[in-house]
């Protein structure tokens, strides 16, 4: 976009005037651009936590190690729930764009339930790690990096669930209509971000790290 304008400016500099190009975005894109910037900053934040996790993989001086305590079934179920929720939130967004408010509320409720299911899985996993295996943030480097990375991801899911629940409550009170579609769309972007971050976390922590 900026390159395109620079080129056109260079062209006009040589005497080929091309009228008056309008601004690159309309004001209705304001929320979208803002959310895109925020998502970039969030990606930089999580990248740092992931770099720290990878840096300390296998550097532990004492156990337990990831292979000894991380269990597949629960996390795979949670991953399926979270990945599915990216689809349901997308369908909720499409329904809102078409003005089908009851379908919007159904898909939104499904998204919230899938998000809560994922958080319940994380809670169960943490209980297992802390109570059964005695792994805390202070036990070793694995505990330190695991609880920080997965904890911050879970915090972001929690914030997402709260926002989506607010939207559902407002929608139930008939406060949400087609004209709020852009607002909901950027919330769905946030949800997709949380989902994408999880896929990286899953790969690093449960596939490579294990």
């Amino acid at each position, binding site marked *: 976009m900026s390159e395109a304008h620079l080129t056109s400016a*260079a062209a006009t500099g040589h005497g080929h005037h091309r009228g008056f190009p309008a*601004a690159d975005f*309309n*004001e209705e894109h304001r929320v979208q651009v803002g959310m895109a910037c925020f998502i970039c900053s969030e990606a930089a934040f999580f990248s740092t936590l992931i770099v720290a996790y990878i*840096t*300390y993989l296998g550097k532990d001086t004492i156990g337990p190690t990831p292979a000894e305590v991380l269990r597949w079934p629960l996390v795979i179920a949670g991953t399926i729930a979270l990945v599915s929720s990216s689809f349901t939130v997308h369908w909720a967004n499409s329904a809102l764009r078409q003005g089908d408010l009851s379908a919007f509320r159904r898909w939104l409720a499904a998204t919230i339930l899938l998000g809560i299911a994922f958080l319940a899985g994380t809670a169960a996993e943490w209980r297992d790690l802390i109570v059964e295996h005695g792994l805390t*943030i*202070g036990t070793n480097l694995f505990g*330190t990096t695991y609880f920080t990375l997965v904890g911050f991801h879970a915090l972001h899911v929690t914030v997402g669930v709260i926002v989506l629940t607010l939207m559902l409550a407002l929608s139930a009170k008939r406060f949400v209509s087609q004209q709020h579609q852009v607002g909901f769309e950027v919330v769905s972007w946030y949800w997709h971000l949380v989902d994408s971050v999880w896929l990286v976390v899953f790969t690093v922590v449960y596939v490579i790290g294990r």
Partner: protein
Amino acid sequence: MAVLDHPAENVSPPVAQRAPSWATTLDHKQIGILYIITSLIFMAVGGLEALIIRAQLWVPDSHLVGPDMFNQLFTMHGTTMVFFVVMPMLFGFGNYLIPLMIGARDMAFPRLNAFSYWMFAFGGTLTYLSFLAGGAPNVGWFAYAPLTEYAFSRDHSTDYWILGLMVSGIGTTATAVNLVTTILVMRAPGMSLARVPLFVWMMMFDGVLLIFALPPFTAAAIMLLLDRGLGAHFFDTQAGGSALLWQHLFWFFGHPEVYIMALPAFGIISEVVPVFSRKVIFGYESVAAATVVIGVISMGVWAHHMFTVGMSDALDAIFSGASFLIAVPTGIKMFNWIATIYGGKIRMQSPMLFAVGFLAMFLIGGLTGIMLAAVPIDWQVSDSYFVVGHFHYVLFGGSLFAIMAAYYFWFPKMTGRLLSERLARWHFWLMLAGFNLTFFPMHIAGLLGMPRRIYTYSADRGWTIWNQLSTVGAMLLAVSFLFFFWNLFVSWRRGESSGDDPWDAWTLEWATTSPPAHYNFEEIPIVRSRRPLWDLKHPEDPDWEHE
């Protein structure tokens, strides 16, 4: 006469009635002024700390403040000047000017804007409250682990440092989001990205840099906080953690931060130099493109702060090469500014005076920077006063000289009054002399082997005379800033009325009244060239016929 605006008479009620409206304001101009005033207060405090540091180093074996207080002073001086003075001052000017320059009524997210300011004000205050709680942060503005781990820093001073910077850092990230969005979305009709003033270009890239560089710092600060508060082991070497990871993460933020403070300064210079040379900027496209190149390279040079920690030779070579490379786009900008001045009808009024001061001082800082980018020289002088001299030439000689140019240039827009030229000249010449007298001898003291951060030295080292020169220079600097503050105060009360466009400038902020009405523009202007106000003033010979 305002070209684009016809506001009602400016009747301002007494201060007591206006105070609540300042506390709750969402107007970008008021928030900008709040940023500027708050950062001036922090500047006075940070400058006072520097004076005490210099007083302590006046004679060998001095025990004026002692080692503990000295550590607190240099930590707070660095932290204050970087986070609570230079950055917020630039955001203040950015906040005030960007909507005016791009022909908008406000920033993209006014509430987020107010939130950012209050986070900065609260974060800065929180850091200073540590003085009341037993001791200020004493670990350096870089807070190297493991010194900052609980084992070596048992009081709460480090926690104040982390929390204060995290709070203001969240506000700064929000500012970055706001800046980028405002510049991408809110421009007036016809104002393409190839037509925005260069200050706007550089503030936009500043926002991009912040969006990618600041969150890693926030993450690292959280890691340190978890280490200290919950017994985590990120930077705990005895449990396998790495002190080097802190350095990597800190400088991954800390190096771009140098450019985050420098780019808006470049933007200010790119606005001031053309107006006072009566010429369009030479090579607009190359100045803008160099901004992008500087931004990209600056993200890849952080480890040049770490040549002495023992990385591999290959890494040293890569980071050294990247650091050399950054001199190329910076040199392009210097060339463009000088080419703009060359052959111009130069008016040596106060903003131009400071802009030229910037060019000379920043050049010296850039040259010593190239010296430091050479690994063998860095090994020799790293953590000596040579480095202290170098970065003060870059940050003080660069950013702060440019910011001073901004004060003299835009004060009339903000207040409707001119700053006194006579006081400005006192300020400039005292500042230039004091600055060089303070920081040039530091290079020599450093080459003679004087390390950074020492609270005293013995008389047989041969450093005494250089330290005394620096201390005298610091006093001169302090006097020069008294002229500046006095000028601000006096001119704000009863300065000469400036009119709307005292410098005969060409960008849109001068098309409204001084100070602008709450809504900025009664009618949003239509932009057809890079100098929209020139077009309005000279309908017989508008720029767009030639572009």
